[in-house]
């Protein structure tokens, strides 16, 4: 498989459609794979998979609590299970089932949350997700990974399906998503990736919003503020060593996420910094614990300080 050609194609397709393509590859490697959904197939790029492997696809209808229970039952009987639906329904509607089946009983399922963050802002906040990371972080035995681009989604799923515990994979952005990783690289669940170096400020992000972090870092460099940009794709377990290393090297850390600043990446980083001796200031960029009016993806990013300009401003104000 030619990686370069695929990176471009996958980015134009976006994470959801790419997930469908990845499923076609995963099932060849894992013949006991079953994908379970709650009335989403096209939205998850799964039409081809559904048509080619109907016996490895179970749609339980718009019933997310049952989705998790059925998935856990299948997993307990030896199947590798990936469940998927839109992020709020994948995580909140069936939250207790996730706690009991995945956390408490440790049944292994990969949950893929579609269109998380702010990308469906024009549908209103019932279809956006700024709480999912925070809520799932409190449940033991579940790892949380936020791929930065469709290529990283491929690597995430490849590892997640063999990972020791359940993994929640949070998809962000839509079609024509940005390319963060334009060539092959080392990926490991739990290990952050420093994609740009710089000694003044560290911008730690997760998800496709990392593009805005990179753009902001480029502009800041012209103003002689050197930023490192770190892809902290795994929010749980957080790469403590990397956070502590960054705190030693920089005077300011800024976290960037399409999530409430309470409970998500920013909080996870804050927890590490609070228990470590350092002189580094932390500023969290994200949804400041309110639901904004709906609108386009760009409109919402701007309201929550996630646009390139607002990230630059935040860095300036806190230096």
């Amino acid at each position, binding site marked *: 498989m030619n990686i370069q050609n695929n990176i471009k194609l996958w980015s134009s397709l976006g994470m959801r459609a790419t997930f469908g393509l990845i499923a076609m590859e995963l099932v060849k490697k894992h013949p006991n794979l079953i994908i379970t959904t709650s009335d989403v197939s096209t939205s998850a790029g799964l039409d081809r998979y559904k048509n080619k492997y109907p016996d490895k696809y179970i749609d339980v*209808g718009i019933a997310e609590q*049952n989705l998790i*229970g*059925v998935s*856990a*039952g299948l997993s*307990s009987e030896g199947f590798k299970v990936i469940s998927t639906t839109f992020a709020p329904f994948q995580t909140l509607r069936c939250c207790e*089932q996730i706690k*009991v089946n995945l956390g408490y009983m440790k049944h292994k399922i990969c949950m893929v949350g579609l269109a998380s963050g702010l990308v469906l802002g024009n549908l209103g906040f019932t279809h956006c997700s700024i709480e999912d990371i925070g809520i799932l972080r409190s449940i033991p035995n579940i790892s949380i990974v936020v791929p930065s681009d469709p290529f990283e989604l491929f690597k995430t799923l490849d590892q997640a399906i063999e990972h020791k515990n359940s993994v929640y994979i949070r998809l962000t952005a839509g079609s024509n998503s940005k390319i963060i990783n334009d060539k092959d690289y080392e990926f490991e669940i739990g290990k952050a990736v420093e994609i740009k170096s710089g000694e003044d400020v560290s911008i730690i992000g997760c998800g496709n919003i990392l593009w805005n972090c990179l753009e902001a870092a480029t502009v800041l460099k012209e103003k002689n503020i050197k930023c490192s940009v770190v892809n902290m794709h795994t929010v749980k377990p957080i790469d403590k060593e990397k956070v502590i290393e960054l705190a030693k090297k920089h005077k300011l850390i800024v976290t960037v996420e399409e999530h409430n600043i309470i409970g998500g990446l920013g909080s996870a980083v804050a927890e590490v910094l609070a228990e470590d001796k350092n002189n580094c200031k932390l500023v969290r960029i994200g949804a400041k614990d309110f639901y904004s009016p709906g609108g386009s993806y760009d409109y919402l990013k701007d309201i929550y300080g996630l646009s390139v300009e607002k990230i630059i401003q935040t860095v300036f104000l806190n230096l």
Partner: protein
Amino acid sequence: MNLKKLENFARNIRKNIIFTAFKAGAKSAHIGGALSAADIIAVLYSSIMKIKKQKILDDNRDRFILSKGHACLALYSALVEKKIIKRKDLETFESDGSNLLGHPIINKLSGIEFSTGSLGMGLSLGVGVALAAKKKQKKYKTYVILGDGECNEGSIWESILCASHFKLDNIVIIVDKNNFQQTGKNSSIMDLKDLTSKFKSFGCSTTEINGHNVKKIYQSLMSKTTNKPKVIVANTIKGKGIKLFENDNNWHHSIITKSIYKNIIKEI
């Protein structure tokens, strides 16, 4: 089916329930709901389910899920009678670090398939297990016991829709219909009205029986179904077997003192 053996098994389950609840002392126990399920569980474990200690993890075993997890004393008692767990393990009930808590904890080696207790979840798991059987082309059956109060939970109906949609004739759902839930009668808290019709309308092959007539329980469990999940609505009495407890919701979760124990043990 050996009627005497069945009745004995049920009697022993009741003895174990009362003894264990008594030993739990001030920690108290869910008693009424365990006693109402005792005959159903007795028939399943003594005469219906393919399950034994030597092949406890065998992929061909029948699976049992106590979705109304608070009736766990009946399950533990049956496992003792089946010699899958030891009698002295019952004495660790609700103790620090014990595997036998006030709700079942998953322990396949001890014959406990899943952790239940949060009502409304066990049937979903059962549907997943039954689907797995179809995919693996295995003949094992999955038996799920629900409480009637538990049927307030929407998730139960999600699972029933699903079982019916996928034509799961390898799952058997038994509703322990003792007409009570924690705070009082179902009819005053959240009236289920005609529960049997509801299951029928959801596409299940449904019968209604006396949940304490072991012969009827056995016959309804043995009857064949095709392409539909089987539901048995078992009319039961909360606290059945101990006159002091019968239909008295104070015994949903309570303490059996020494004097009470002395009085009631004669009844079994």
